[in-house]
């Protein structure tokens, strides 16, 4: 962090009317042929649900292209009218959130080799003075996950596994534990 950056402060408990009044939890229609539902809940260090968190996601489209001019890989199709790659939602009284999206295609890692398919996640809440950043990886990509540079950088297998969603048939389950024994792995950018 450069020293002049504006400091972060908590989102507080009263953000809903400003930030999540519009439903941005469905990046594609539920009826989309490749729709994937990612759902979970946010828990605090006592294992209690966090009912006042905001979860945001950012991801590439199904071809692995981001809807951003910085991603100039023009050989990959872009579908900005139908897929922005951004979603956000507030957690409900039970700490739950869900997104309907598509599985992103693979995107290049730091050495140019593809990373495993993943969705970037930010978590904001009262009591979080800075956002938390994590990633959702896909359970059906065992081989790609094993080769992924970010997942591989996490030594403890149980800690690493907190980033891989569970296949529950009609949805992928991704719970976020802010603290405690089962704490989710979070990143520093």
């Amino acid at each position, binding site marked *: 962090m450069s020293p002049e950056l504006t*400091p*972060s402060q908590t989102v507080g408990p009263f953000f809903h009317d*400003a930030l999540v009044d519009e439903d941005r939890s469905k990046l594609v229609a539920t009826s989309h042929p490749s729709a994937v539902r990612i759902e979970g809940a946010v828990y605090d260090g006592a294992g209690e649900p966090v009912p006042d968190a905001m979860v945001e996601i950012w991801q*590439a489209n199904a071809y692995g292209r981001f809807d951003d001019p*910085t991603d100039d890989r023009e050989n990959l199709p872009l579908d900005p009218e139908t897929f922005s790659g951004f979603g956000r939602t507030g957690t409900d009284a039970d700490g739950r959130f869900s997104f309907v999206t598509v599985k992103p295609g693979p995107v290049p890692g730091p050495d140019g080799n593809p990373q495993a398919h993943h969705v970037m996640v*930010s978590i904001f809440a009262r009591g979080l003075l800075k956002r*938390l950043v994590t990633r959702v990886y896909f359970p059906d990509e065992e081989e790609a996950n094993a080769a992924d540079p970010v997942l591989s*950088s996490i030594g403890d297998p149980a800690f690493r596994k907190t980033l891989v969603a569970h296949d529950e048939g009609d949805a992928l389950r991704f719970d976020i534990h*802010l603290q405690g024994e089962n704490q989710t792995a979070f990143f*520093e950018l």
Partner: protein
Amino acid sequence: MVSQQPTNEIAGLRPIDEGQPPYLYSDYVATRLRAPKKPLIILPKTLSDTTGPAFGRGTVGELDYDLTRQHEGEPLGERIIVTGRVTDGDGRPVRNSLIEIWQANAAGRYIHKNDQHPAPLDPNFSGAGRCLTDGEGRYRFVTIKPGAYPWKNHDNAWRPAHIHLSLFGEAFRSRLITQMYFPGDPLLEHDPIFQSVPDEKARRRMIYTFDLETTRPEWALGYRFDIVLEGREATPFERPHS
């Protein structure tokens, strides 16, 4: 392959960034059960975080920047103009970027259903606005000065008057949610959220500057607040080379 490098404030392996709050700040009670305790994993820079969502003109209505014109009448309180520039760490303007704000009304009450402070709601004030920065990174809001309000963090706890800001910047890395405070507010020194930022100069970067040039005669006081976001390509200065 990237080797694991546990991070600053939790593992103690890097100098703490005094310009940002820590996750755990015990005086702010809600951090105690919500701050992560395991080392953060350093994320190498890739397209996943050097890209970010774009919000076009369609996202923002023409009058969304003016919180005093969302209802039939004008809200009660002291009308203010809040303006400034958004840049990255290298001083480059952050253009066409979404800024969202929300705040309490002049009496210190949010419209939010969970706000139980026994202060009046204002039927002419919802307290939420948004705008896009222009080609030079400038933004402008018209609103009313929010009131201070009590909260239950500790005995006789009051939040200083503040406006919440949410910014996307140009990349996932740039995302920032912060609060802007008013100069000379005696509550600042008692507020654990404001005080959670260790560096005094950094705390001052969260306080508006009264600006006579922005002030409109016979109409509203003007305040300036410039915002610096992490850039897409910026290299954090204290990060060890791997």
